[in-house]
């Protein structure tokens, strides 16, 4: 069943920058869709529109058939930075995301989530006393406390080291199994996309458009040793390469320098 439907979405900023044109993406209930693409191709813009933080210039976004006009209670988000409120303790930051729960529910869910993200003893710490990875875990817990149907993630792990990142991938999948929210996540990391997503949308810049959509045929939990995992990674990488290649001046088309961020 289609949960999230993005239809012919376009966004032109006030300064005339056309960030998105004719974006069509559908995601089913419980599906994880990763969005990949070069810098500046409108990935953050897309998520901001879905989150209701910005107004689309054209097209529609609908959740369960209902067209969105702003923020939506069923949609929650984790940003690239943790964005914890510095004046709230860890526990209160998590509870902040559960504004629609009853006070008792919120309290119970906060305690349960603190435990789930491995910060059981940290409820009364200030955000400044947490490491980057711990802060990002709190942000994930805050996004999940209100039982969102749709979770938006904008490069949430990009600032973390590979080991922490891998452990947060597992945590995310683990939490996803409880509630099965639809996840729309932006990433720069091909491996991350292949590990987490059911489908990968590759975008292309100037203006941001959908270049290619690749289903991920790797069974979950994905075993990175399997040949299919590497094959998938290579297919995604070359799709990204092509998405940029179309944009290059002729004569430079096979220049491998352009691949550098992803190789």
């Amino acid at each position, binding site marked *: 069943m289609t949960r999230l439907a993005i239809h012919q979405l376009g966004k032109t900023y006030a300064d005339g920058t056309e960030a998105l044109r004719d974006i069509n993406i559908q995601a089913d209930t419980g599906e994880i869709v990763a969005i990949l693409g070069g810098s500046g191709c409108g990935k953050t813009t897309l998520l901001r529109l879905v*989150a*209701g*933080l910005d107004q689309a210039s054209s097209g529609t976004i609908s959740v369960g058939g209902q067209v969105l006009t702003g*923020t939506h*209670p069923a*949609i*929650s*988000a984790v*940003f690239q*930075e943790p*964005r914890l*409120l*510095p*004046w*709230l303790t860890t526990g209160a930051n998590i509870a*902040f*995301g559960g*504004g*629609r729960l009853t006070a008792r529910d919120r309290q119970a869910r906060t305690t349960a989530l603190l435990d789930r993200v491995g910060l059981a003893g940290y409820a009364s710490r*200030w955000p*400044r006393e947490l490491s980057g990875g711990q802060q990002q875990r709190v942000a994930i817990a*805050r996004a999940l406390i*209100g039982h969102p149907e749709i979770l938006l993630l904008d490069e949430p792990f990009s600032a973390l080291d590979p080991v922490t990142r891998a452990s947060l991938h597992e945590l995310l999948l683990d939490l996803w199994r409880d509630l099965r929210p639809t996840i729309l996540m932006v990433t720069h990391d091909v491996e991350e996309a292949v590990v987490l997503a059911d489908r990968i949308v590759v975008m292309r810049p100037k203006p941001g458009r959908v270049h290619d959509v690749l289903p991920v045929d790797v069974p979950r939990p994905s075993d990175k040793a399997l040949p299919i995992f590497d094959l998938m990674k290579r297919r995604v990488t070359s799709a990204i390469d092509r998405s940029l290649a179309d944009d290059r001046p002729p004569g430079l088309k096979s220049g491998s320098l352009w691949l550098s961020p992803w190789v």
Partner: protein
Amino acid sequence: MKLAWPAPWITGLILPLTLGVAWELAVRHGMMSGRLMPPPSRLAASAWTLARSGDLAVHALATLGRVAIGFACGAVAGTMLGMLTGANVTARRLLDPSVQAVRAIPSIAWVPLFILWLGIFETSKLTLIGLGVFFPVYLGVLSAIQGVDRKLIEVGRVFGLSVMSIALRITWPAVLPSWIASLRTGLGLGFMFVVAAELMGASEGLGYLLLDGQQMGRADTILVAMIVFALLGKAADGLLVAVSRPLLCWQDTARTRL
């Protein structure tokens, strides 16, 4: 071996204590008259006399009362107007240029007009103090509201907070540190302006004591009043800091002491 050096605040006492003792000795041995610059012992004696007669308490309380009322009025007005212009663009465009223009006038320059309008009694004094407190608080609140991190506001929006809840749960706590800093600046200016106000003419208050000391040629009275001013200002500031400390314990700043 490293010498055990006493607590840092003791280091700060060395200079004033040395000067005090040197001055005391110089006057005792007849090298200086000490009439215009009385030595510590004479200051202590006058302070004691003033305190025992109850005069010092009367004057100090009068001054404190003026500062308290003026500060409260100026701080409330500055906070309210700063919140209004910070929250509403139209209000800002309408009001801020005028406030800034009035701010360009040195506040003491208002004294003659205030006396003309409000008389030489309490009202004009309190108005002057309130005006001095108003500007730093207004500016502090306005610029703090404008400086609130848009990213944190967005967190509130994503999690479905109303405009009012965002103001209360995100903007307000974010503004709090600057607000308290501006209140401290305001309080300092309040003490500055109470002197000006009391020098305008008053029958009680530490400012009156200053003027009285000058007219009677009593440098010791003047100095005692000055010292009491310093102590009261410091105590008021310390009180403000102590009251606000629990509100700011989340802060992650270089200032371990506010």
